[in-house]
């Protein structure tokens, strides 16, 4: 555009053309911009109805005395008790604690094992490729299926106890013992997340500049030193993104909890989003469920804000 105006000042006849171009160009560009915007409209309209509007309904239900009948009629009495009663609700406080423990275990286990796995499958050998295929399959398997199989494996008369019995470990109730159920489901949730973490970390590990590793080795660095001072700093941004993504993944977990323990025994494996669902669909207290849903969604908005800040910084850097 700047070039066009420049020639225009030199030659009168071309100048007119150039001027014409300078005002026509933005208009054509604006039309393209409108077209690009229009292409997003069907998706945005769909999301407005089925994703955004429900969020609005969630808030309005949270401030209402809503049972199933009220969901159908759409009319309910206003109340703030859904929120006001929460600090004294045992179920809420337990779920909060369960969520914290559950998410922490899944994140730490997924990243630690993901890193170990990435280190192993990085080598291109038949055994590693076979393992990678098995792991991607485990990830692709619907949680309802893997949850059912793990429920059988971890049941009282299941495979886990049979195998552990061989090495002299006493029979354990992995899912029926309130002191173990949350950890067992966290283990299976991590099992499903590890393939994801491993593949992401593998790609990143292969990117570590070999010159830096060699240079460090020449300087007499031990393997641990190379890992801490060369590999880890290289992986750091990916580790941060993975931590956020797996936190959200663990926080959202539902299917595995539902299949394996249904949040029990009692409330021992009920996390916050699961409690919201239970209050609404199991007990018919949709207002209370919506209030809990508002609280757990607030966590997610915070995580999303952090994620988009981190990933933007990664894009720029």
């Amino acid at each position, binding site marked *: 555009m700047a070039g066009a105006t420049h020639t225009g000042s030199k030659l009168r006849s071309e100048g007119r053309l150039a001027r014409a171009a300078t005002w026509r160009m933005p208009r054509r560009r604006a039309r393209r911009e409108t077209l690009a915007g229009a292409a997003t409209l069907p998706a945005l309209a769909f999301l407005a109805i089925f994703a955004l509007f429900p969020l609005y309904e969630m808030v309005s*239900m949270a401030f209402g005395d809503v049972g199933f009948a009220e969901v*159908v009629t*759409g009319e309910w009495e206003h109340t703030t008790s859904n929120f006001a009663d929460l600090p004294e609700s045992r179920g809420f406080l337990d779920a909060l604690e369960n969520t914290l423990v559950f998410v922490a275990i899944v994140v730490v286990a997924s990243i630690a094992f993901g890193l170990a796995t990435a280190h192993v499958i990085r080598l291109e050998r038949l055994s590693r490729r076979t393992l990678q*295929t098995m792991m991607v399959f485990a990830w692709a398997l619907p949680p309802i299926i893997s949850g059912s199989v793990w429920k059988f*494996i971890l049941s009282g008369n299941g495979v886990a106890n049979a*195998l552990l019995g061989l090495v002299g470990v006493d029979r354990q109730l992995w899912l029926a013992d309130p002191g173990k159920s949350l950890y067992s489901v966290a283990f299976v949730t991590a099992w499903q997340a590890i393939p994801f973490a491993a593949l992401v970390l593998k790609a990143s590990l292969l990117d570590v500049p070999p010159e830096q590793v060699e240079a460090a080795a020449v300087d007499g660095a031990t393997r641990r030193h190379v890992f801490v001072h060369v590999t880890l700093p290289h992986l750091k941004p990916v580790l941060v993104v993975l931590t956020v993504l797996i936190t959200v993944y663990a926080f959202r977990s539902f299917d595995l909890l539902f299949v394996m323990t249904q949040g029990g025994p009692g409330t021992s494996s009920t996390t916050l989003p699961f409690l919201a669902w239970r209050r609404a669909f199991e007990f018919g207290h949709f207002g209370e469920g919506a209030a809990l849903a508002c609280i757990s969604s607030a966590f997610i908005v915070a995580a999303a804000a952090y994620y988009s800040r981190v990933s933007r910084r990664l894009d720029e850097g």
Partner: protein
Amino acid sequence: MAIVGSERRSLGRYLVLGLLFFLYGIPILYLVVTSFKAASEIPVTPAAVVFTPLLDSVRAVLNDALWTAAKNSAYIAFGTAIVVVGLATPAAYGLARMRSGRIVSFLLFSLIVLQMVPQANSVIPLLRVLVRLDLLGSRLGIIFALSALLLPFAVIILRPFFASLPPETIEAARLDGASELAIFYRIAIPLARNGIATIAVLVWILGWGEFLYSVSFLPKTDLLPMSALMSLQVSSEGVRWGPLMALAMFTALPIVAVFIATQRLLATGLTLGAVK
């Protein structure tokens, strides 16, 4: 010294390898093994892999209910894949071509938020929305709810494919007189083909295994998909492991088929959402 060190290292590596093979092989092994084991043997020798295979459990679940559930799952899986790909492709293209950085980053942020809202939470107000639209208790309602859940993710993943389109290619097409629509159909879509295929496969798999919306929105009738049929078996008192595993095996079969056909696509698809 060095030799001892490297031996120890490779020992550690083999231990990790062995442990992983064990952890990821065991569930698949026992899914199949338990499906063919006699009901009386399962609680007594759950871990045994040498036994007389029986078809009792497989026969017990091979009935009309399974066939109906399979059709429902297929309907939900294909329906969701069509809605998501149909809406996400133009949206991702539009977002990639928009110049206004502020609008684009606002939209992307909103998509990330929507993608992260727990399904167990959005299911509560969605009940109200489906009642309003008279879609409660229908499979179409499940397709729409699930599409809304997966659409943001699809757009986020597809956008970089279109953003990597060279502007020169578009400019050249334009000089040849191609309309904006022709550029989208003839140039952009073929170039983003891999991304679109990945999304279609991922959404199909997630649709096939969809569970939460189906349990919450569908009556316990012949509209239930495979996943919900399985959960009915699990939640009943005293689980019959043989038929449950057989049912899980049948539910997994189409996934295995899709997996074998699109394995490479999936391995890359898995990591797509993470970094970009």
